[in-house]
């Protein structure tokens, strides 16, 4: 009779000790806690300013995409799984572009204004669909940006297929990169704090059990509106930022690759963790730059990567790495056999 084996996972001793912050007694334990937290912050800071000038542009795009991914992940943890983040991006971009081009507002006004107006319009666009949840919501959010793209194309508003060009640029690459990094960290830590607060628990409850929210006397729809406003606001800022960075705005803001990138980053990094999407964006951003030579095959590679990860490693990279960091895995004999669950 062959004995079956199963994989046992045990927390490392150092994790058990450091879980309780009052027991820290050695440099090693402090390092165990601090290094994984400091690594991304310091690493990105160094990376952003030490890389050659060409790659600085890539870093800006990566940071912005990281924000988009964070916003997607936030909305997904509220049960609002959007397949059309491009809608928010484009609305923010067009609002900022219009404010700068038609009203002649300077850049430090047009970005905040574009963010705000974009978020309001996005929320209004999504409002009719808030009665839906799950797959139905995803279906509708997939359609809206693609349809708006056709509207812009056929009616020719906001420059139609040509777009708006000649917008005010940022003062310099260092300012741009610093701004995008600060915005990224504000988004990340802000969202993490938000999710952990009492107020944020309501958002999470929207996904886990929205009847409970309703039973607590809170309006599902009103909290969904707030979640959309926060989530779309982040994307609108990204849109407004990138408009001024590229100094132009066109229909490509609605394109499907902008919707697919945040999802890909979140799925690759690990959905629902907030760190995961960030990790995903940091991996996928430079990767997409490296793949620039492939042209339209880039989107193919993203989408293929996305499909592979969702089938093969659905939990994502971050939870996988975190497990390796915190737990010992070993094979033990399972005399009773492995239960089939």
């Amino acid at each position, binding site marked *: 009779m062959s004995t079956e084996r199963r994989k046992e996972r045990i927390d490392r001793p150092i994790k058990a000790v450091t879980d309780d912050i009052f027991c820290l007694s050695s440099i090693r334990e402090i390092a165990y806690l601090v290094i994984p937290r400091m690594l991304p912050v310091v690493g990105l800071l160094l990376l952003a300013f030490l890389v050659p000038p060409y790659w600085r542009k890539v870093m800006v795009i990566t940071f912005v995409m990281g924000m988009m991914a964070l916003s997607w992940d936030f909305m997904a943890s509220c049960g609002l799984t959007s397949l059309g983040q491009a809608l928010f991006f484009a609305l923010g971009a067009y609002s900022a572009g219009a404010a700068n081009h038609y009203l002649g507002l300077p850049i430090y006004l047009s970005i905040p204004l574009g963010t705000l107006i974009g978020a309001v319009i996005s929320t209004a666009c999504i*409002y009719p669909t808030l009665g*839906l949840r799950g797959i*139905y919501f995803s279906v509708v959010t997939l359609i809206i940006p693609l349809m708006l793209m056709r509207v812009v194309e056929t009616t*020719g508003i906001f420059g139609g297929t040509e777009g708006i060009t000649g917008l005010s640029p940022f003062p310099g690459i260092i300012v741009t990169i610093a701004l995008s990094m600060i915005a990224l960290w504000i988004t990340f830590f802000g969202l993490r704090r938000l999710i952990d607060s009492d107020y944020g628990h309501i958002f999470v409850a929207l996904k886990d059990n929205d009847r409970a929210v309703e039973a607590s006397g809170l309006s599902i729809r009103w909290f969904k509106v707030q979640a959309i406003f926060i989530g779309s606001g982040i994307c609108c800022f990204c849109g407004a930022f990138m408009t001024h960075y590229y100094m132009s705005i066109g229909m490509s803001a609605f394109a499907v690759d902008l919707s697919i990138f945040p999802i890909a980053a979140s799925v690759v990094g690990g959905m629902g963790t907030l760190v995961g999407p960030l990790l995903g964006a940091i991996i996928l951003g430079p990767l997409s730059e490296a793949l620039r030579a492939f*042209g339209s*095959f880039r989107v193919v590679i993203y989408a293929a990567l996305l499909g592979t990860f969702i089938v093969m490693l659905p939990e994502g990279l971050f939870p996988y790495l975190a497990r390796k960091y915190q737990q010992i895995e070993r094979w033990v004999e399972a005399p009773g056999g492995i239960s089939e669950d």
Partner: protein
Amino acid sequence: MLLSVLVYGFINSVILAMVALGFSITFGISRVANFSHGGFYILGGIFTWYGLIKLGMPYFLSAGLSIIIIGALGALMYKVILIRLRGLELSEVIATLSLGIVILELLRGLGVFGYEFRNPVFMDGSVDILGVGVGIQRIIIVCAGALLLILLHFFVHHTKMGLAFRGVAQQEHTALSVGINPDLVSMLSLAMGSVMCALSAVLILPLGVISVDEGYDILIKALAVCIIGGLESTLGVLVAAFIIGYIEVLTSMYISSALTSVVPLACMLGILLVRPSGIFGKSKEIEERV
């Protein structure tokens, strides 16, 4: 003018209904939203084109082969990808969407663009209907659409397999307990949806050029029709197709053809505001939607 609205609106509606039916059938039975619908549609057209133009096969052989290939692709997608994700709606959506994008963008990367990529019509010429000249291809589409609908109705309501399909659609567990294999039925439903998708591609694509953007357009239209009609209701799909179809034609004739693309979006948002579950999708109102 009015007569041509009547005739062309009808044809437009039938086209919309055919495109949406494949999506709605799959979703109604296996609850899998096949977002690679647009990709399969264009792939079906391209396969037909390749067989016909590049390999010199007869039209009906090449069309038939491509329909079979797309059907097999749908089944394969279930067997390889979706079966691992059953029940995880979000993952299913992401997986099918990513497959659809892979297909469409791959075709774009391979250079599917331009006037060269078009399938010829089955038969040249036109007929007068109510004093309006209509191309024979459009008549074939309408006839085929009607035939398809009748066949579908017969299949679902009068065959044993159709009964199994309806059983799985109603309750998977109960269907399992009376000996129906839900996995097999789901796989077949995906194959069926894909076959219908390819069939409509073979019929409809000769009216225009095969392009990648057309794939996204088709997906949008199919989804809009399904959302308006109620995702799981065949009757709803038909009614919604006729609503959108006629409004589109009316807009392009009386207001401006540039506004045609706004119509489905406006219809959809308006309907969702009033009836979140679509016109005919009332059964799932409490369970699936808030």
